[in-house]
């Protein structure tokens, strides 16, 4: 055990994956590109959850599984836990990460910031493509644990971001 992964390599890989799918394979259909990237994340999350839940008792309810994602799963992936977990107790969970690792080295493109839109929302739009992959990871992990759900992401202010999990009943 104790294998290590180069952080800069992962950052480059993610950036390159998003740019390949958005600009080369599906340059005309961004929704399709987003779906493909999400599907890759789904497979990764599916397999990781299998590994990280080894040697632990089974989860009794949804909250326990979500807590596992927030604590152990996130620590394995990002060496930190989710900073804040909110729920409405009706199947919606909001996981907030105040310094999301994969966004911590990103900034908005200054050349587009003098457009009519305010720079905040422009940056958020550009970043949203990079969040389909982690969304897919969360969805893959939870569905493998027997919890079908939909996951979306919000960027409030870089590098903080929050993931919204809606469990399908």
């Amino acid at each position, binding site marked *: 055990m104790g294998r290590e992964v180069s952080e800069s390599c992962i950052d480059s890989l993610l950036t390159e994956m998003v740019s390949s799918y958005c600009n080369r394979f599906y340059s005309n259909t961004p929704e399709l590109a987003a779906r493909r990237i999400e599907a890759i994340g789904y497979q990764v999350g599916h397999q990781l959850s*299998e590994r990280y*839940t080894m040697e*632990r*008792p*089974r989860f009794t309810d949804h909250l326990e599984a979500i807590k596992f994602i927030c604590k152990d799963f996130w620590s394995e992936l990002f060496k930190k836990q989710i900073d804040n977990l909110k729920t409405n107790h009706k199947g919606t969970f909001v996981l907030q990460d105040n310094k999301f690792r994969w966004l911590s080295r990103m900034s908005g493109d200054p050349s587009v910031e003098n457009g009519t839109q305010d720079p905040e929302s422009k940056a958020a739009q550009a970043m949203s493509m990079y969040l389909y992959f982690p969304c897919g990871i969360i969805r893959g992990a939870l569905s*493998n*644990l027997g919890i079908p759900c939909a996951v979306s992401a919000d960027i409030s202010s870089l590098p903080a971001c929050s993931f919204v999990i809606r469990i399908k009943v």
Partner: protein
Amino acid sequence: MIVCVAVVGHQNNPLYIQSFTEADDALKLHHIVHCSLDVVDERVNNPKKSGLTLNETFLGLLYPTENYKVYGYLTNTKVKFILVTTDLDVRDADVRNFFRRFHAAYVDAVSNPFHVPGKKITSRTFAERVSNIVKSFGLSSAG
């Protein structure tokens, strides 16, 4: 001696089943594995009756038949592992140890990016690893 091991998916679909006997009794062993699935369901749905420690992955002895003992294991991802053995005095620790190694082998097999989730495990490496684990079963207690 272990005569049969099986991996069964969360919809009770067989993912891997392998018998380790010379005789032509694969069908009988598959039948035993099939029967054990109901026992697993029962254990999981009525944890109080069976007196299990809460939600442990190792389910213990599922049921004894005349010639075999059947043990079960249920992962967090609802994948079942079934073990059929002819040994009548098996130590719990040995079975636990077996399942732990079997689970590790399974996780490595499904982490292969070319493996399709929910499909049968066809990896030769996995088959080899499983037969090694089966061969070494119970050796630690004998030595």
